[in-house]
């Protein structure tokens, strides 16, 4: 493993965390998704460009580069889903809580 690799992993993970904790917005989520989609189409139309780009980045084949990007996209989507589920759990909790308080025995208000 080259020294750059663990550093890249740490950078990537911390940027994800920073993004999800501070800069999160639906607009940016969608822009990222759109950008990845456009990149995908571009790679299909000009397959050689991925190899050229891959070589520049020190990855051997274009396929490998696509694979790495795919892995990153998947991680991004999973975290996105995770945060959506968390949000909907929070809403569900609020609803259940309100019903519980409303139907309480003995309440005086």
């Amino acid at each position, binding site marked *: 493993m080259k020294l750059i690799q663990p550093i890249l992993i740490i950078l990537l993970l911390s940027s994800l*965390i920073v993004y*999800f*904790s501070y800069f999160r917005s639906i607009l940016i989520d969608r822009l990222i998704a759109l950008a990845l989609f456009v990149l995908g189409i571009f790679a299909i139309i000009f397959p050689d460009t991925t190899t050229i780009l891959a070589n520049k980045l020190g990855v051997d084949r274009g396929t490998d580069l696509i694979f790495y990007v795919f892995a990153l996209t998947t991680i991004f989507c999973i975290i996105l889903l995770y945060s959506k589920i968390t949000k909907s759990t929070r809403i569900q909790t609020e609803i*259940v*809580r309100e*019903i*519980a*308080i409303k*139907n309480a025995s*003995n309440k005086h208000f």
Partner: protein
Amino acid sequence: MMETNQISAPDKPEDTWIVIPCFNEDVTIENVVNSIANLGHSIVVVDDGSLTPVKERINKSNVHVCRHIINLGQGAAIQTGIKYALLHNAKFIVTFDADGQHRVEDIKQVVAPLLSGEYDVVLGSRFIKGGDALDIPKTKALILQLAILFTKLTTGLKVTDTHNGLRAFTNLAASKIQISQNGMAHATEILVEIKRNAFRYTETPVTILYTEYSLSKGQKISNAFNIVWDSMMGIFR
């Protein structure tokens, strides 16, 4: 936190609210509730979607029962109880486990430091001098020590017991604490909230009774990993 001095002595016992989160505690809940009710405190039992509703078996004027229509977890139940107690103008709020592992006489101990207005939050501890963990299994003690270390590292709070269900809050502190961890990670979250709000907190010795029943109902040791996981994943909200 400087604004807590709305506390006026002498306090009426019914102004202290005991929040009891409860999930399938059929064996113990009635005894626990009855023994606390005798002290004159107000009680809110939060039935967290138990198979047999608690409401049907408890009928006392100072005992309120809220029922979650589905099971959400202990953290959510405590938050519901706190909200309910605040709506009834509670002065102090005490959380108390339903499985009979706490001693009723310890309620007085956790509330006492709040009376002077000197503290916002009091945490029960089984590991400081005067506290006790009767018949605690060795592995459980070890896991709890790891949890305490984890808390020290992540929050910087110097507490001796992080997962003790017996705690007391002033109404002001309780209104500022937002428990969003529905599961068992709420214990850590409460400590994070204490830190965030810069609450004045102290620990007081309490005794935990490990009975065969409370051990079978209580936290499985393997759940420690889940608690750490939930706490960490809290950043992806």
